[in-house]
């Protein structure tokens, strides 16, 4: 099995509202896959369909080679899930919840559990009622990581963790990746996805807008340039692919599409470059572009690499 998750044209409606509107998602076995999108884009709904908690109205979904709805219980033995908003049983201790969830999946690795409890600095004797949001999240994350499963599904797992614990989370997930486990990581914390994921899927309003490796996607974004020039530069404003051009006394600022970078630089050097600051596209920019006014008309799901060059 080379695909842990394959979702095609998934549709889910709540009354009039189309939460998922033809969503596609492909997660290969053994990869850490970033699942990005703004709040309300449909990340949680997609995960709930994959977990057999919700039934899709259209499209297909396959999980670990099985049907997520009809084979839910058997499939769940092989995966662990951490919801975005973790609520636990107030009168159980954190340690009890970790053990119970592990046993309800494929079993729990107690050495791994003890190690994780220590790394995340969790007091497992406290009742869940007294845990903060971050601590409840730690309980669910530890329970997932210590479970003997093939697939880990995290829905915004670090939204309540402090920066120190975020680092711990990244380290332990990197270890899972190296151990060959598949991870679906839904997030809007971009640095986390940047650090952990080989491939990402970006969704917006229930549709997939981009999917591919991070380097694929970087080709699609603009590099921002700030240059000090000896003479005014000619022809920048007429060059296709140059955006947000600002001409100042001593130089220019603009952003430029990857495919026009070469020509833009040629015009700059013709005008005598005194200093140049160029910033590579950050994931933030990549992400923001898809938040902005919708390229709603179906953007190609996986753009052929040739177009970018």
């Amino acid at each position, binding site marked *: 099995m080379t695909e842990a998750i394959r979702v095609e044209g998934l549709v889910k409606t709540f009354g009039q509202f189309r939460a998922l509107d033809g969503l596609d998602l492909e997660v290969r076995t053994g990869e850490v896959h970033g699942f990005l999108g703004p709040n309300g884009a449909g990340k949680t709904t997609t995960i709930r369909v994959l977990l057999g908690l919700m039934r899709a109205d259209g499209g297909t979904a396959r999980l670990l080679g099985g049907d997520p709805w009809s084979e839910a*219980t058997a499939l769940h033995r092989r995966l662990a899930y951490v919801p975005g908003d973790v609520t636990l049983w107030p009168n159980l201790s954190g340690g009890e919840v970790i053990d*119970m969830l592990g*046993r309800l999946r494929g079993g729990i690795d107690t050495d791994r559990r003890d190690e994780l409890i220590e790394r995340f600095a969790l007091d497992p004797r406290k009742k869940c009622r007294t845990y903060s949001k971050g601590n409840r999240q730690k309980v669910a994350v530890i329970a997932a990581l210590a479970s003997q499963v093939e697939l880990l599904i995290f829905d915004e797992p670090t939204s309540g963790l402090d920066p120190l614990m975020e680092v711990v989370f990244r380290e332990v997930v990197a270890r899972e990746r190296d151990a060959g486990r598949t991870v679906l990581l839904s997030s809007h914390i971009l640095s986390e996805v940047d650090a952990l994921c080989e491939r990402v899927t970006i969704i917006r309003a229930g549709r997939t807008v981009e999917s591919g490796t991070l380097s694929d996607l970087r080709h699609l974004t603009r590099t921002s340039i700030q240059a000090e020039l000896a003479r005014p530069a000619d022809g920048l404003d007429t060059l296709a692919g140059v955006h947000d051009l600002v001409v100042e006394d001593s130089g220019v600022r603009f952003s430029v599409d990857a495919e026009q970078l070469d020509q833009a630089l040629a015009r700059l050097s013709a005008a005598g470059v005194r200093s140049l600051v160029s910033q590579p596209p950050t994931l933030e920019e990549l992400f923001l572009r898809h938040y902005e006014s919708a390229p709603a008309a179906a953007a190609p799901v996986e753009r052929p690499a040739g177009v970018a060059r």
Partner: protein
Amino acid sequence: MSVSTRPAPAGTATPAPRSSDLTGTGKLVRLILRRDRWLLVWWLVLALYPASAARSLDNLYPTAADLQRFADDMLANSALTALYGQLHGASLGEVTAWRIGSYPAILGLLSLLVVIRHTRVEEAAGRRELVGSTAVGRHAGLVAALSVTFLINIVVALVIAATLRGAGLPGAGSLAVGAQFAVGGCVFAAVGGLAAQLTTSPMAARGIALGTLGVTFLVRALGDVSAVNGGALGWLTWLSPIGWAQQIRAYDSNRWWVLLVALAAVAVLSATAVAVSARRDIGSGVIDERPGPATAAPGLRSAGALARRLQRGSLLGWLVAFAVAGLLYGSVARTVADSIDDDGNGRLRDVLARLGGTGAAVDAWLSAMMGLMAILAAGYAIQAARRLDAEESGQRSEILLATATGRLRWAAGHLVFAFVGPALLLAVGALAAAATSGEAGRQTSRLLGAGLAQLPAVWVLAAVTVALFGLLPRLAAAAWGALALCVLLGDVGAALDLPQGLLDVSPFTHTPKLPGGDFSAMPLIVLTAVAVVVTAVGLTGLRRRDMPAN
């Protein structure tokens, strides 16, 4: 600067409430009214009950002589004194006020639940922290919850006074009955406010407040029974807020000064709650939480085991309550039987018949009490089944259902309690009643059978709860409405001469009235079949629908 070891505001050792501590109270009052508007409407419906009780008594006992004979019978009856309180006179007003004597306790129950809902529940859910970070004083939440509850109780009191006056009863006495209800509501609202400060868990706070209500009810019952029979324990009544409410003696002497006692209690309890609230951190209590085990016991490895863990405390509490109730009902069975036999016109028998009691005197009493227990057991069944709903809307079911736990197995863990729990409750209640009835040898098997014969009706209500949860999860709370309808049909249906077709809606109409009544198996088989089918339909709905429901 003085430094306090307590986390008191601004480093003062004993913070006196300042006006800034109350900033935003008005806004929170509006928030509570917005969130609970429907609950509050239902509360007002309760206010219409006294006037309808007055009309119903007026119909049953149209002349002064009828009322006098009824009052004489009641006076001689310790069990009813324990249930309703002391009866002081035989006018329609006095008899009405007596008949509804325990209703202020129901208002108290609602009040304490609402206050805890808007204080400790908010805090445990983390919402108080959010609200507390805005321009809201540190006491605003507690004071707002208490204010709303006091206010609604006063409104209820005025509605009661107006409707009783409208039913032709004297104005002063009607106002006194209203005050009686307001006392029950306001004192227990303050009890709830204090209980909410003591523990970190809403459940424990409810336990403390409900326990207080239960104890004061029993203390009042003991005091009243002692007073009526010339005993020495009459003073016990004065230890109980429910006792104060009744000691106003509406339509008799209308002792308004008793209100001062209640007012003082409300003031002291509320001030204590505010003082405790000022001395503690947000999210903490006075009674500390003990740490739990670091690892789970070997048995905690299935959804069923989790359900047992979540449900056992509640079932244990109900079992104790049924045992106590059974012991009480059993012990007064003889006394009641004697008073029924002395009652030449059979009026008391009428009263019991309306409660579902038939047959010989002792049996009439016992079967009426079995009917009551069946209603309570149905309350437990609904509560236990609705735990599914609580788990789902509390988002705890999601992480569980993402493990290798199927929906049916998850549901089954809780439904075992909804279906087997009532059997245990009825059995314990029956055995306890038999033990104190004075003829344990004869009554044990009779009462056990009588209790278990009610079970199919209880199951139907549990099944309705499951069906609502599976098919119409948004309306799951309507299960309580179904039980209320059954109670209403049983309580007033016969008196109002409602058509049999309507009465038949309640499953309790069909269960045999045992001991003493005719037994027939057919209704029990039909009711059980209905329960099975309705449950199956509900579970099918649960399997097919989205979770969480939207």
